[in-house]
């Protein structure tokens, strides 16, 4: 997918996750980001695991570091540096922070899985040609590095050497660096053999924006409008000292609008070409 149609809805969802306070809007943004990621080409699992783990960690820690809220739920033994009183407001704030992190991570992940890497690199190349090439090649080397690491561990096990302990695991570093250098040289040579660096380059014209990409752009603009409404204070929400009512009409309306527009974007991604 072209960079702009992928970037607009994902960027707007990211902004919503970062700027909104209302829990329903945060939940709606996280849900739409998740559905967009699932509609994009696989893999999905590593991105979801990362987002959920990071969010879960924040949700679990917050009640023990926050000292606010007027609705105590549980009190534990006194421990240095930790707040042993857990309040409903701290739990809600932690859950909202988790949704914020999950939504942000999933929105970025959805963009990474949706966008055509080559088109993105070409776009960046118009501004910074060398950086775009280095970035693109670096991104391509990462999965190779991962495969090499797995291959080295497998080969070591094949001769009865387990690279699990910390001392032996460090042995991975030197061979991986050697292999990466060899691969980088081979790639640089192949690029030069295909004329790279021989003079000014051209680029094949970008293809026309198709219907589903136009729908995504529209959805992105609509989501940006909702971000503007949130920034203008359309659905304020406070967690401390007491929780606001989460079912305020403005909050519910904005959350429903996010789900509707996000759903449209997901439908456009899933629509067969």
């Amino acid at each position, binding site marked *: 997918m072209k960079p702009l149609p992928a970037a607009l809805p994902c960027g707007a969802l990211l902004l919503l996750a970062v700027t909104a306070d209302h829990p329903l809007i945060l939940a709606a943004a996280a849900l739409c980001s998740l559905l967009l990621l699932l509609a994009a080409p696989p893999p999905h699992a590593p991105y979801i695991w990362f987002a959920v783990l990071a969010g879960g960690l924040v949700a679990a820690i917050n009640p023990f570091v926050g000292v606010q809220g007027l609705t105590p739920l549980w009190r534990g033994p006194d421990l240095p540096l930790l707040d042993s009183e857990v309040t409903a407001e701290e739990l809600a704030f932690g859950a909202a922070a988790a949704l914020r992190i999950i939504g942000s991570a999933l929105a970025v992940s959805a963009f990474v899985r949706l966008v055509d890497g080559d088109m993105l690199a070409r776009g960046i190349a118009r501004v910074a040609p060398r950086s775009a090439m280095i970035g693109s090649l670096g991104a391509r080397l990462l999965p190779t590095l991962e495969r090499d690491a797995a291959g080295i561990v497998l*080969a070591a096990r*094949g001769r009865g050497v387990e690279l699990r302990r910390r001392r032996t695991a460090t*042995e991975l570093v030197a061979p991986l660096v050697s292999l990466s250098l060899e*691969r980088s040289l081979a790639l640089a040579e192949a690029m030069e*053999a*295909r*004329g790279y660096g021989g003079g000014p380059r051209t680029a094949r014209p970008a293809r026309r924006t198709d219907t589903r990409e136009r729908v995504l752009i529209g959805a992105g603009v609509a989501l940006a409008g909702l971000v503007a409404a949130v920034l203008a204070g359309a659905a304020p929400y406070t967690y401390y000292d007491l929780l606001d009512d989460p079912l305020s009409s403005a909050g519910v309306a904005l959350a429903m609008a996010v789900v509707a527009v996000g759903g449209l974007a997901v439908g456009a991604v899933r629509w067969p070409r």
Partner: protein
Amino acid sequence: MAALSFQDVSYSYPGGARAALDRLTLDVEPGELVLLLGESGCGKSTLLRAALGLVPHFHGGRLAGRVIVGGLDTREHRPGELARAAGLVFQDPEAQLVAEGVVSEVAFGLESLATEPGRIEARAEEALMAVGATGLADRSTGSLSGGEQQRVAIASVLAMGQPLLLLDEPTSQLDPVAAEELLALVTRINRDRGVTTVLAEHRTGRLFGEADRVVVMDAGRVSFSGTPPEAARRLALDAPWLLPPVTQAFIASGRPELPLTVREAKRLLGTRAESQAVAGPAGDAAVRLERVWARRGQVDALRDVTATLAAGAITAVMGENGAGKTTLALVAAGLLEPRKGRVHTYGRSGYVSQNPAHHLLRETVAEEVAHALELARTPAAERRRRVSDELERFGLASVAGRHPHDLSSGERQRLAIASVTVGRPAALLLDEPTRGMDGLRKLALADLLRSLAADGTAVGLVTHDADFAAEACDLVTTIARGRVLADAAPRSVLSEGAFFVSQVGLATGRARTSEAAAWLRITAGERLHA
């Protein structure tokens, strides 16, 4: 004017002790199909790199003499400019992929040559069509198989439209059918489009008879240049292992004819031998897989597989790319847990990966061999003795103090095997150990494996190379789409099938060169008698 001309060219890599090219002179005429032969390290790859100016512009080093490609002197023009005159397809297709999408990959060279933007897409699509890869246009390069990657790599060069195509062992990672298709494609490009082609290749069976000229290199020099029949007569005396397997069988039989293709051999013979099962050694099972299912990623790579590795025998595991051969080896070596079924092992198994570089962890060759013994806390005296024995056996004693990454590819391969066999596994699984190996090295590897089998080791050899399997192995296990077609069958099956068949087997009905030669001697005697 020659399409490519080397004029008294000498070249040494930076820090290289000896010249990689040594006063080499060679002219390639427009439209020629030249097959470049020689043992590993003789300078074939360096010659191809010099033709594109990568030597010395990319690699450094000292170059003397002149290399002229398409009228351009490589000393005065950098590879980026010379890419308009010649295209080079490297041995490892994965290492030359630049872009994420297939069309972007093919377009990369065109964009580098500043092709008019409006024509790039059409030329990229046309090049994909020419290599029969239009179906790959919407795929990502990371999802392609080795054969598909190689096709895309050739399309990437073809799209640029250079009049000279250089290929460095393009079939080394392909199964027999994919390799045949690729070489047929190269021949077609040369014949139909008139693209001058220089191809370095160890698997000479398909191309030897098709080439206009065979150039043999030795120690950086051209030791012979002539038509295929002339080259066959010369190599029959000097280096028969460089010839197609079917030609080698005729030489071994002492017959005067030197057929260069299976077709020619069949015409000369008129008949094939009756199939004759050759029993393998009847050793006990060292590893037995019973109704095993195993997954790689999301795919059931093995489906209800029952297979045996017999002690004291070499068993080839053969199948097309993606058939499940590596998975079978990993399960047999105890490195992959089966999803269902049972694996019976009668001793420890060792596994040699298809990339020897994955075995190189230590600072010296001797330390590398000793590594597994150190971790197993083998007493120092015993460890020194076993390491010394293994270094001797694998011909690595002279490089014991060198860094493993400084070794040649053949030495790395031997070191990888030695680092596993030093632990004395009851079963040894080797994954594609002949990739990029020349004929002489394959013979040496076959001897090594035989010596391991003679010591009672069960050797399992995952390979695409039917000719090598016929020469080295006692038994053959064939696999397709995760299912075993034949378990531990006698190697004579390599003269019977359609896919898993050696070139000698195709022509004579006997899988191994020595068996074919014996049969050829008999048929020659019968004819004489008649």
